[in-house]
């Protein structure tokens, strides 16, 4: 018998205090209380690195890109296109041309629904899951209605995991052309088994798109290791600005797909009769893009890279474990979803207290959470709920904030019983 010494990886500890110093907004007071911001899954706060980068861009280095033959335009184009390299590296994409900038995840998914959807034939199907955000549901319903394809929905288990057997059965007839599924649920926190999902999809002849809006924030993403064909995310949840999102797609797929929007920047030649398209990615980037926001996204990615996903993932896992333990001690509180693998999102309900009331009363105590259907109405119906309260964590979240949340929830509960 051989004895193996397990390799011990030192888990890097985040200096959360130092990180918080880089987020000016975290020093704000709300209703005279220190802000406890537990709504990063809706949109994350921005570090100075991003704020300063965007301000400096507008102060010192701004012009339209891809078209000016002057110094400012060239410098700005360089900064903008540099972000494409950063994003390719961030996702471990095989090449920078496969990175398409969009407004957000929603637009990235709509782009695929429109342009990949144009290649589909009636009788083919798109397969989503019960835990999709409306952003990864409504575009496929629209495609179904104009392309005459089928839309299939893979069920989840009561714990909030993808029902793998049912998923397999839905792929069995070989008609599914695309599986579009979340990599992490914004309601349940579920991290889906992406590699397994992709392998099963490919075995059935389908391509796979992952909605990475929630997941890219919490751990390292490698689209090649996952075996993805498309991957989307949104800048504002990744400590970057709003107005900038990303679609990564496999080169051969992007090349086959017709453009999404027409206009400037996406053409090769134009006559009154006919136009030819630019190469990827520009074919999909019509009009003046969100220049400053894209450059800001680059700053956010560099900032996150510097902290490193080992530390981020360990910190958030720690917070989530702590939150699940602390919330379990609140009388009448029910955690919604017990997935096998989860990220830093915890939904809950409380007996006799509506999520809306929870959020309103927490807000008066300076605590920001989200309450509602979280843009996932069909999931709510599946769970038999009309709304949940949701706390979500980021790089800057402290355990003490979760304690404040739990203690305040106990007080709120007393208030109603």
């Amino acid at each position, binding site marked *: 018998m051989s004895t193996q010494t397990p390799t011990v990886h030192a888990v890097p500890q985040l200096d959360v205090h130092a990180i918080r110093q880089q987020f000016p907004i975290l020093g704000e007071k709300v209703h005279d209380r220190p802000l406890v911001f537990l709504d990063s899954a809706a949109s994350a706060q921005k570090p100075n690195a991003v704020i300063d980068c965007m301000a400096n861009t507008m102060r010192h280095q701004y012009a339209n890109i891809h078209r000016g033959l002057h110094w400012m335009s060239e410098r700005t184009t360089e900064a903008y296109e540099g972000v494409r390299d950063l994003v390719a590296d961030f996702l471990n994409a095989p090449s920078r041309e496969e990175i398409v900038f969009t407004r957000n995840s929603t637009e990235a998914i709509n782009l695929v629904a429109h342009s990949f959807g144009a290649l589909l034939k009636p009788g083919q199907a798109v397969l989503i899951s019960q835990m999709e955000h409306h952003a990864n549901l409504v575009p496929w319903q629209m495609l179904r209605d104009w392309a005459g394809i089928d839309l299939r929905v893979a069920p989840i288990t009561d714990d909030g995991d993808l029902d793998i057997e049912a998923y397999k059965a839905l792929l069995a007839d070989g008609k599914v052309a695309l599986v579009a599924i979340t990599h992490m649920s914004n309601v349940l926190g579920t991290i889906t088994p992406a590699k397994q999902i992709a392998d099963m999809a490919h075995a059935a002849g389908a391509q796979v798109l992952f909605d990475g809006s929630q997941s890219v924030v919490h751990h390292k993403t490698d689209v090649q290791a996952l075996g993805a064909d498309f991957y989307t995310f949104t800048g504002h949840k990744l400590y970057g600005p709003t107005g900038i999102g990303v679609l990564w797609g496999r080169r051969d797929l992007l090349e086959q797909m017709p453009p999404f929007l027409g206009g400037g920047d996406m053409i090769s030649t134009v006559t009154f009769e006919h136009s030819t398209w630019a190469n990827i990615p520009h074919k999909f980037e019509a009009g003046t893009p969100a220049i400053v926001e894209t450059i800001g996204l680059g700053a956010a990615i560099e900032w996150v890279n510097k902290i490193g996903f080992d530390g981020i993932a360990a910190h958030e896992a720690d917070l989530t474990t702590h939150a699940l333990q602390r919330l379990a001690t609140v009388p009448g509180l029910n955690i919604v979803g017990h997935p096998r693998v989860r990220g830093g999102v915890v939904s809950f309900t409380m007996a006799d207290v509506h*999520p809306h009331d929870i959020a309103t009363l927490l807000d008066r105590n300076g605590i920001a959470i989200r*309450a*509602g*259907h979280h843009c996932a109405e069909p999931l709510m119906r599946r769970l038999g709920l009309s709304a949940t309260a949701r706390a979500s964590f980021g790089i800057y979240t402290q355990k003490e904030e979760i304690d404040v949340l739990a203690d305040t929830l106990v007080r709120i509960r007393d208030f109603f019983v």
Partner: protein
Amino acid sequence: MEAPFVNPQEDTAAEAIEAIGDELDVFDDWMERYQYIIEMGRKLPPFPPEWCNDAHRVPGCQSQVWLEEKEADGRLYFAGLSDAAIVCGLVALLLRVYSGRTREEIQATDPGFLRDLGLVQALSTNRGNGVEAMARAIRTAAAVSA
């Protein structure tokens, strides 16, 4: 007016707003203020469960609000309910102001008072709040000619 429609306690909407302001001023703590608001919601006349349906639903984002109206003697009377306790209390405040008034008075009464009282933030922009939608529904009902 018979239940569940709300009868006015004050002679005018303006007086109702003033009375509500005075009552809330008694508390110096927001949690107490909310407790009082929740209490007002609990005292609303019971809203018939069969009206808790889509036909009565005021489209709102975070909580469900149901509304019914009835006209008598040139006045509009309202009944309402929400599944969230604080929103239900805000509904009670709204009905105390608006129910049992003439169409003219309803239209002349700006729902901005909820914001002035610190009860609703950014009244006109927060589509998540059913109360804003409710205030709009009440004023729209008043604008429709009988």
